[in-house]
């Protein structure tokens, strides 16, 4: 099976969440993003790389600069997976309701 980055892993990190919040308002260059943090530029650049690999952010060339902006579709996708996971559990529990009611009747 192919290995790939886990999106949950990506957003589990507080700095990466802060980057997402930061660029949600408007797209920013890596330097502008790094200025907002106390950590090294390399560290911030690594975080941006992880977010890019997960497609949570997208780079966009504007003149000589690269601007990063948030990928709303990917963020929505996360919510979609969670919603489907919820549906699976809901289905299981509704089936359990029926099994419980059958067993209760048999006992009577």
């Amino acid at each position, binding site marked *: *099976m192919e290995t*790939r980055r*886990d*999106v*949950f*892993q990506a*957003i*589990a990190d*507080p700095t990466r*969440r802060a980057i997402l919040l930061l660029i949600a308002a408007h797209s920013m260059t890596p330097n502008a993003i790094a200025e907002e943090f106390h950590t090294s530029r390399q560290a911030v650049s690594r975080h941006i790389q992880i977010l890019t690999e997960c497609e949570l952010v997208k780079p966009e060339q504007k003149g000589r600069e690269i601007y990063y902006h948030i990928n709303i579709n990917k963020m929505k996708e*996360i919510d979609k*997976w*969670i919603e*489907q*996971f*919820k*549906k*699976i*559990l*809901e*289905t*299981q*529990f509704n*089936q*359990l*309701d*029926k*099994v*419980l*009611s059958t*067993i*209760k009747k048999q006992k009577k």
Partner: protein
Amino acid sequence: MINNLLFDFTVDKATKTVFITREFDADLSLVWDAFTRAEILDQWVAPKPWTSKTKFMDFKVGGRRFYAMVSPEGQERWAIQKYTSISPKTNFKYQNAFADKDENPELPGSDWDLTFSEQNGTTTVSITIYNESLARMEKLIEMGFTEGFKMSMNNLENLLATLSERA
């Protein structure tokens, strides 16, 4: 069947933790059995038309349940649960992982913690899932469990497309 039994589902994305609370209209010992005995588990854990088949289940600390979800075409998706803690009729914990047919788990899996309590004949089960990954969720969904849901999403998309053409 109309039910007004509580179903609460929240996800903390930052800590990769899922919290679920569900009420059941049955007494505690029956609900406990439904979660801890293979012959009852196999009746409800696989969303239809899938079925569940338990090869073995040793419900004790350190014991394992090795089971498959079987598709209508007969395709088997194996999983292993390893019990890490059991307090009878109160709580049990296990590690859950997909596996191959030879019992080799695909790590990492997720950690499940289930707590049971009863009030006036209604049993509440509180489940916390730690380290659930999106990749694992995707796999569950790929298994076709949500075929009906996907179809209704497609229908909705078609409907929206039709409506926007008219606008």
